[in-house]
């Protein structure tokens, strides 16, 4: 029986980069999963996710929660220009961050795209969020971006297709 999870692409950065783009994503799966292990080239940064080049001011909505060792916080917004994959936590120059992002029914054109993110930054927090791309378009490209500072050498970003 064929595997239900197929590795589509993986990149390990050999030099700093502000973005990693997955394009021409086939519409033959049901869900997508991103596994992101980022490190900052310098300082810290946020991991952002955008679909089909959409950076519109109200294209994304997100509700999140995190615990940072001293408090538990929840917030939300319906007017984001991106999805923040690790709520309340920036990635650092240390390899201490793992983020998984599940994108459901990415090729369906009868619904907005629902995304679940789980982030773990060892020195900052553990977090979870639910996000939505306010579009019924099928997702054909994904940009994983670093805000403030670039992804550094050794950053690994993998994309998987989940069949159903």
């Amino acid at each position, binding site marked *: 029986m064929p595997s*239900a999870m197929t590795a589509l692409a993986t990149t390990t950065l050999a030099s700093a980069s502000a973005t990693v783009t997955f394009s021409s994503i086939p519409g033959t799966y049901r869900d997508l999963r991103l596994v992101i292990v980022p490190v900052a080239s310098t300082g810290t940064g946020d991991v952002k996710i955008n679909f089909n080049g959409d950076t519109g001011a109200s294209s994304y909505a997100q509700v999140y929660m995190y615990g940072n060792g001293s408090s538990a916080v929840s917030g939300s917004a319906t007017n984001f220009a991106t999805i923040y994959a690790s709520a309340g936590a920036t990635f650092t120059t240390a390899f201490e961050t793992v983020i998984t992002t599940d994108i459901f029914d990415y090729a369906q054109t009868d619904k907005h795209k629902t995304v*679940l993110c789980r982030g773990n930054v060892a020195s900052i927090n553990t977090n979870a969020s639910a996000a939505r791309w306010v579009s019924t378009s099928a997702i054909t490209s994904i940009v994983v971006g670093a805000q403030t500072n670039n992804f550094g050498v050794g950053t690994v970003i993998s994309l998987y297709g989940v*069949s159903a």
Partner: protein
Amino acid sequence: MLLPFGILASSGAGPAGAMELISTTVVSTPVTSLTFSSIPQTYKHLQVRTTWHENTSGYVFVTANGHSSASSTAVHYLTGNGTTVASAGNTNWPGYWFNGFAGAIDSNGTSVFSAGIIDVLDYTQTTKAKTYRMFSGGPTTVGLTSALDTSLEAVNTLLFWTGGAATFSAGTRFSIYGIKG
């Protein structure tokens, strides 16, 4: 860095692997429940992936093996609603079901779906109780749930139901996978 897709990604099926699709159901006419029955006992764990919409505020309850009488379960929830983080739980839940997706109640626009993942660990083992781990979210909430069903039965049926007057809307999808181990 741009990563175009080529032949490696052109097919929908890869070589045999650890995760296999068992069954998928997509709702075409509103229903109050969905059942996965005769679940193969040949895997180590199960994973259920779902996107759902309900016609009115409702829940996604989970019942294993058609239990119809109270049995002992334990459940804990951690939820964020955009303003506060809340936690609830019961170590002696007197029911045969539990709310699989705490806080992810959704009755928003017809294009707005909630999503969730349920992991059922060691589901075939008859020497241990069954552990459920759930992650879910929708337009207004995000939640983490853990549940324990103290029944030693191997899980061969999973029922997902809304309770009350809510129905799963068309486009709702439940997929169940077997994880080898």
